[in-house]
Structure formats: C-alpha cells, structure tokens
C-alpha cells in the first residue's frame, strides 16, 4: 500500500486543465486535414471537395497527404442541442454498434489520470437507464439496431445521443451511419476522435464551452 502512495506522490499532478486550459496533446491525423488545393484530391470516402473537408466523413487515413495536412486544431463539433441541466453531472453510456474497437477505447481513455473525467462531473454508467448521454460508436449493424433503439428508449429525459467517430456519423469506409435510425444530437469527428476532442464535444453539449 505504501508503495502505491509513494509512487503517486512522486508522479505529481498529471491531469490536464482542459477545457479551461489548453489541451496538452492532439493526435495530428485526428484533426481535420486542411489544404489550399483546388482540383482533384484522392479521398477514399469522398470527404474532400475543393478545399473543404467534411470532418464527419474523414477517416484520418492521410491519403490526401501531402496536398492536405492535419490542421492540428480541435475539429468542428456539430451540436444540435445543448443541455445545460447536465452541466454539473453527466453519466455516459458507451454503446458499440459496430466498431473496430478504437473509438470505444478512446472514450474509455477519459477515465485515465491525464483526463480524469470525474473532475468535470462525468462518469460512466453500466446501464442506459442511469445514463444522461449515450455515446454510440461504429457503423450501424443489423444485429445492433434493436439493442440501440431499446437502449435509447430506456434512457430518461433529458438525453443526448452522441455519434462518436466517422463510422457512427457517416458510415466511414465500413458501412452505414447510425443516423439511419436515430437522430444525432452531437457529432464527434475523427477515426477515432482524440480523447480531447471527445471531451470538448461533451463540454459543448452541456453548454460549458
């Protein structure tokens, strides 16, 4: 026991002050690419038109490099509703509708000491019945349609539906978007989104930034 305490003291404070402070890191290709090119750019998901990039479609593959480069900015987060009543406390339920696994792990990373989601009044819950927000990851798969509808129906209002990652938002390169069966309150772009981007999206959805 003593060893653990000593270790923690030795390590010091590692937690970010984001969102009041600056994010300490951001994975370059989790940011929306930017370029100043008119004409054809090779994009396997048709996310680039002239110099505009649809961040909800972008799968962070880097095929557009070197014409386009990572913007190194937190991408534009589309939010159609803001729930200020959840600004003090918010319980999140992760729902995997058909991921490669990466988006799930990036959401779960919010629990690690660098992010310490609890300091913002955020926590994960094991059941949608106790959840204020559902974080849906992955493409829409046939077998998960009913469980997804059931999970959202079982949540009490107010409830927020997050589409986390390009697969959930647009279907990415793997399949269909979850928007075919549920309305998306918040879209968190990236393949997968960086944990700081997910945190920014959560804070935006409850009116804290």
């Amino acid at each position, binding site marked *: 026991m003593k*060893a*653990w305490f000593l*270790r*923690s003291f030795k*390590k010091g404070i*590692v937690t970010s002050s984001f969102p009041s402070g600056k994010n300490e*890191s*951001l*994975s*370059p*290709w*989790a940011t929306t690419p930017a370029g100043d090119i008119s004409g054809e750019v090779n994009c*396997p998901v048709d996310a680039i038109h002239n110099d505009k990039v649809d961040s909800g479609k972008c*799968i*962070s*593959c*880097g*095929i557009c*490099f070197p014409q386009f480069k*990572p913007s190194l900015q937190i991408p534009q987060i589309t939010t159609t509703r803001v729930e200020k009543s959840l600004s003090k406390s918010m319980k999140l*339920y992760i*729902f*995997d*509708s*058909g*991921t*490669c*696994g*990466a*988006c*799930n*792990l*990036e959401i*779960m*990373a919010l*629990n*690690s*000491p*660098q*992010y310490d989601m609890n300091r913002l009044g955020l926590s*994960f*819950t*094991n*059941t949608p019945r106790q959840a204020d927000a559902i974080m849906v990851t*992955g*493409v829409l*798969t*046939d*077998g*998960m349609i009913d*469980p997804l509808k059931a*999970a959202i129906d079982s949540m009490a209002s107010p409830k927020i539906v997050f589409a986390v990652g390009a697969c959930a938002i647009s279907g*990415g*390169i*793997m*399949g269909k978007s979850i928007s075919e069966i549920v309305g998306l309150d918040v879209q968190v772009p990236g*393949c*997968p989104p*960086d*944990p700081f981007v997910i945190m920014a999206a959560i804070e935006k959805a409850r009116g804290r930034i």
Partner: protein
Amino acid sequence: MITPARIVFEEDGKIFALRRYSEDLEDFSGDLLKKRVVDLKPSEKLSLFPYGPSAGGFTESIYFSILTSGEKIEAMNYDTSLKDRKISLSGKDILKALLITERINGIHSASYSSLFCDLMERSSGIEISQEIMDLRTLMMEMERISHHLFVAGRLSGGASQNIASMNIYLLREELLRITGQTFGHRYFFGINKPGGIGRDIDLSNIYEKLESIVTEYEEIYRTLMDSRIFIDRTDSTAIIRDEMAAGPVLRGFGKNMDGRLQHRYYNNLNVRISTGDSGDSLARYVVRSEEIFSSWEIVKKILDRNTRFNMVEEAKIDKIQGTGEKISGYMETPSGDLSMILSVRSGKINFFKYSSPSLWNLRVFADAMKGNNFADFYFGLESLGLCVSETGDIR
C-alpha cells in the same frame, strides 16, 4: 503435435487449409471448421443468464448465454455476430481494401496492415527494404505494449487494485500520445502501404520516453505481484489448456509458440518468449507483462539501427495487379496468430479470408469456463485480451 488448421475452405470440390504460423496452403482431408454449438438446457436448478450484447462490463458488443446455478458456471455460449459489420473486400481496389483491413481490428491495425501489405508485395514480387520491415516490426511491438498495458489495467481494476489500474492506464495514455506525435495517429492508421510507408517518420525522440514507460511498468508489475488480493483473484481462474488457443493464452500453459520466432521480419532480433504453466488468468497476465519487456528489447534493437524512415512513393500500389494466385501468410498480433489468404486480379481483391486470434481464444474460453465460479468470468474474459471486432465474418 499437429499444428491446427486456422483457415479451411472448399474450392472446385477440393478442401484447402492454412495452418497456424504457415505461409503455405495445403490439401486438407478433414472437415470444414464448424461453429461451436453447445445446447444449454435450463432446469429446476440451472437457469440461463443472458449477458450483453451491450453492457457496461464489455469494451465491445458481445452476447453471452451462461447456464448457471447462481454460483458456478455449468456451460456457456457466445454470439459475436450481432455487431458483424459484414465486411466485403471482393472487387475492392488495393487502397480501399487496405483501409478496411486496418479497421478489422483498429487497435491492432499495425499487425493487420503489415500482413496485408506483406501479402500484396509477395503477390507481385515487390521487394521491401530492411528499414520498412523494421518499421513494421517496431509498430507491431509498440502496439503489443499498448494492448498488454490495456489488459493489465482492466485486470488490476477488476481486482479492485484501482491505484495500479490508474497508473497502468496513465502509462498507456503516455504511449498513445507518443505514438500519435511520432506516427501521426495513435493507432498507426495510414502508415503502412504496399511497398512502403504513407508518411515520413522520425523516431529520434522516442527512445527515452518509451524506456521510461517500460521501466515504470516494471515497478508496477513487481508491486502488483506482491498484492495478495490481485493474486487471489487471478490465480486458478479460467484455466485454459487447449492447443487451439492463440498468443498469450497458448503461452500461458507452457507452449513455447509464437509466430515471431520464425517470421522473417524478426530475423536477428532474438525474440524472447515467455511462458507460464498454470494456464490461468494470472499466468496470462505474467506472460503479457514479460512480453512488454521483450517487446521493448526488440524496439531498442530497431531504434539502435534506424531513427528516420522516409516516405516511399505510393506508386508501388499501381504495380500490384496480381494473377489471381492465392497468397497466404501470418503475423503474431498482440492477441495471437493472425492468418490471412488473399488473391488479387487486375488490381482488385478477388479472394480474401482471415482467421483472427480472438476467434479461437473466445472458443476455448467458453469451453474452459465450465466449473468456474461466476465471479471469475470477468478475469477469464479480460485475461484473453479479446477483440470482438476481429471475430466478424468476411464475405
């Protein structure tokens, strides 16, 4: 011991098989591999406990049906098909197929894309440099360290060792950040390309950071091994001794088997293999921890001879036209052996099959849980390092 067949398929009335750690297809006289089916019959004393497909304890969606008396597990079935993405590669061009393959299992994308590119190159006789082989190996070993740290965090958290768990997650996040800064992506998406790499990589700043992560993990590991609570929760739980198992699960009961031992990417890197003997969750944890240290030894050797990798022109993708001939191979992912067969014709994929380690580990886990305490389910499952995404069907 006969090396088990990982992929068996029928074509033109003949049955072919690809065995574990093999690059050669062979004629096969046995049956096609069958889905595991166990008939679970509830009775007065036994009830069926449904768990999943979406539940807080899982990292990915999976459904378990557990026959139990309330305390003991009598039998178990599982279903991974609910989140089956129905991935199809047939008719896809090489680039699109590569991007999809990277996302079959996103957290092991370096292993998947390295094998895919290796098969592409062999299908068209493209030679790659030692540097590119080294970079692929380095990415796969960093991926292994990251994955094993995640499993260690889950296991220690499950055993209420929350300070240990948070310290391990802290190290994993540090590793992911270094990966993101160095490779442009926290999970190595977009680096591997047939014949080369997709962007310049500069490794000159990662040695000290990686060394510090591994050294810190070693301290945590030694302290955890002194924890009676952690040992009690993982010792003798979910004992697996089935040779169909893969990776750390196979090595956890003493099998000195690892695809890296004979793979040409690992020539001259002297891969050190660790084994356990009890086959329980604790043995698998120890094997994974030792693999973190041996992966770091490999990474060090590679960093000693390379620090810069320059982008190789993607034009080599155009050289891959293919003849329709089937090419097969394997790679040792953090979860175990991945086997793949594919063929290319006119620059497009026209045949693709793979066998993932999670597929086999889940199968042997379901058999091994019979007789275990219900509370041990979590430790058995987490010690597998399961990735449900890679158990899906490829059409």
